[in-house]
């Protein structure tokens, strides 16, 4: 049962990253590449009817985490207190940036909310990357100092950084050079992803330029992936032990690299949706590879005193998990129907939706 909910949770989080990821990416493109009013309108129309529903995946995944793995929810949410609250603030800024921009037609007003939307999207992509870095690196569970736990073995608290910015320090910070590296990976990956979505959903003048951007950024992405794999070795002596024991897991990195290399052909794709498909594959493969490499851990411990959190020692009780399957299956079917209806009605190019103009 734990494994079932683990797969459900990871699936929901991956869907969230792929869906809301294109919103963040669109925001970053909006910040750096949209020069004209027409470009900006194209970008907001491309994500307009979707971003709100995409964000629900985060809330729903949070709910499933709470109910199926309460100990992990409690431990990680209190331990990563500050960055999580800041993510909330950024989500608020992104949302009001999108929702309020069109309410008043005034150059200054629009500029303020354009920037709020763009900067919040950029920081969110960075923060989510850093979050992934923290999960891979692990935390000082129980807040052990000199071999003694100061708290219960599954609780911890991380400040935003410590002075050394080292992932090997006894007292870790949220931001160190390793997690920051993954933050940059997040920004670049989602920028590419967002650009692909804009190409897919609009006929904007930007599209030709965006194809070049994707092509160039893809080299950066490849370099970052290689650097990340090497630094992973520094953090974790045996990063591939899971893959050696279970060779079928190689499918995940394979998917990631298919997505990555596929995108080098971005300039010659016949259909506009193909690029988005490849960047989705890359995100899916990248996330699953990361998660598979630490499996069954969900939050590794960096000390020898307290054990890592695994999906088995953080799960709720058997009865609750089993009974949850019934309502979850019904709800999941309904969600699939809603999404089908929604994407069906807003299918094709979005230039004419006129999002935000009431």
């Amino acid at each position, binding site marked *: 049962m734990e494994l079932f909910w683990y797969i459900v949770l990871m699936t929901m989080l991956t869907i969230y990253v792929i869906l809301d990821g294109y919103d963040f990416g669109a925001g970053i493109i909006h910040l750096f590449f949209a020069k004209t009013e027409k470009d900006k309108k194209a970008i907001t129309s491309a994500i*307009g*009817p*979707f971003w*709100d*529903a995409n*964000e*629900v995946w*985060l*809330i*729903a995944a*949070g*709910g*499933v985490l*709470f*109910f*199926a793995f*309460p*100990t992990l*929810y*409690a*431990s*990680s*949410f*209190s331990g990563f*207190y*500050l960055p*999580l*609250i800041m993510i*909330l*603030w950024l*989500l*608020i800024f992104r*949302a*009001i940036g999108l*929702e309020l921009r069109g*309410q*008043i037609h005034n150059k200054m007003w629009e500029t303020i909310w354009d920037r709020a939307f763009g900067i919040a999207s950029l920081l969110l992509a960075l923060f989510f990357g850093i979050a992934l870095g923290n999960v891979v690196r692990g935390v000082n569970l129980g807040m052990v100092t000199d071999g003694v736990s100061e*708290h*219960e073995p599954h*609780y*911890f*608290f991380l400040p935003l950084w410590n002075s050394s910015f080292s992932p090997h320090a006894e007292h870790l910070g949220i931001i160190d050079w390793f997690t920051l590296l993954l933050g940059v990976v997040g920004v670049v990956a989602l920028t590419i992803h967002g650009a692909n979505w804009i190409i897919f959903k609009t006929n904007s003048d930007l599209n030709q330029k965006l194809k070049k951007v994707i092509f160039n950024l893809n080299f950066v992405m490849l370099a970052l992936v290689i650097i990340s794999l090497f630094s992973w070795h520094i953090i974790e002596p045996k990063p591939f032990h899971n893959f050696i024991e279970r060779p079928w897991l190689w499918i995940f990195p394979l998917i990631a690299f298919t997505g990555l290399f596929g995108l080098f052909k971005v300039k010659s794709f016949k259909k506009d949706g193909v690029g988005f498909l490849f960047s989705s594959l890359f995100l899916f493969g990248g996330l699953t590879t990361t998660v598979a490499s630490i499996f069954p851990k969900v939050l590794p411990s960096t000390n020898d005193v307290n054990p890592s959190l695994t999906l088995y020692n953080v799960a*709720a*009780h058997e*009865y*609750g998990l089993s*009974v*949850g399957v019934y*309502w979850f299956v019904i*709800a999941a079917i*309904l*969600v699939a129907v*809603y*999404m089908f*209806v*929604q994407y069906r*009605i807003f299918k094709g190019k979005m230039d004419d*939706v006129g*999002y935000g103009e*009431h």
Partner: protein
Amino acid sequence: MEDMLFYDRMQFAFTITFHYLFPQLTMGLSLMIVYFKWKFLRTKIDKYNDAAKFWMKIFALNFAMGVVTGIPMEFQFGTNWAKFSELTGGIIGQTLAMEGMFSFFLESSFLGLFLFGEKLMGQKLHFLTGFLVFLGSWASGYLIIATHSWMQHPVGYEILENGKFVLNNFGALFSNPWLLPSYLHNQLASVITASFVVAAIGAFYLLSNKHSEFGKLFVKTGVIFGLISSILVAFPTGDWTAKNVVEHQPVTFAAMEGIFETEDKGSEIILIGQPDTENKKLDNKIAVPNVLSFLTYQRWDAQIKGLNEFDESVHPTNIPGLYYSYHIMVGLGTIFIGLMLIASIQLFRKKLYKTKWILWSLMFMLPFPYIANTTGWYTAELGRQPWLVYNLLRTADGISPTVSSGNTLFTLLGFIGLYLLLGLLFLMLAGKIINKGPETTKQI
């Protein structure tokens, strides 16, 4: 430790109070928009569709505010109340996860269609999407109140040796005797907010001589919805809710009503007075003898337990706050019934639109349903103290063990600043929509 608990409570209280200003209008207003839309489908009179469209604009803005202030609520269980989440997550996580899966997806998917898809879908489908948004928001309320009810009156659980609460009966979460009365009471209260808002804007249009046609429609609809909901919120649902408190939380009931001592010959009902918890008495009171006993047990001399019967360790932690919250809610509720009754009589006599003092009253009444809803929730939440899970888990034992008070104060200040900005923006933009008024469909 004291500081940690204090700031955790302040942050939750502040963020939930601000958040709930928006859903209470969302839930009630979605019902009224569905009504306008249905009226249009039946009569084909454009006025109703224009009214629906106008309120959809307010609704969209209000809904967005509700969403952005709602996400922090789900996160805060984990960030600030980690111990509580760890111990009870297997149970309250069920209903909260169901809210995400059943109602948020429904609302967010169809709201976009409802707002932008009228031309794309035709009127009947448009009505349907509106109805689904209404359904989603009311389902969300139901699952939140189911969670709330479990904390007030825990059912279907067992406690393991390590202190964890585990679910052993899923159905019990929904047959909880606390759930239905609280849910109906709360939903009717949200209809009150919406109908007073609709009536107030209508009165504003009539008094300022613009959009008079819509002014009349809004006042009329607001008054009819307002009368029905104001009565039903007090009787039977308010009465029913109070009886739950008497039965399951007698010490809370004593504190709410300001009863310090048990009276053998029946308890008086206190209308006004200031509790003096140091000397255990009520100052400057105005009270009616024996009425409380009658309302509670339908016997004039029935005995009601005073606070003196309970150990101080289980007394609600903020007795004056609880007492005032409850009395403000009840007082305002009574005024709502009175005003709506008079307005309805004038409406029936076809004199309402010319009775200026009622229109002025309706307009200035706008903030008060918000206050009544807020104090109603304070009554429930302060009444549950000092417990998170009634009689089983103390609030002080539920906070995050590793988050320092300095960190919580930092985020609390951040939330205050950010929400102040949100509040100003909301008022400004809502004011703009209201000032512009409904647009009439052009006759071709």
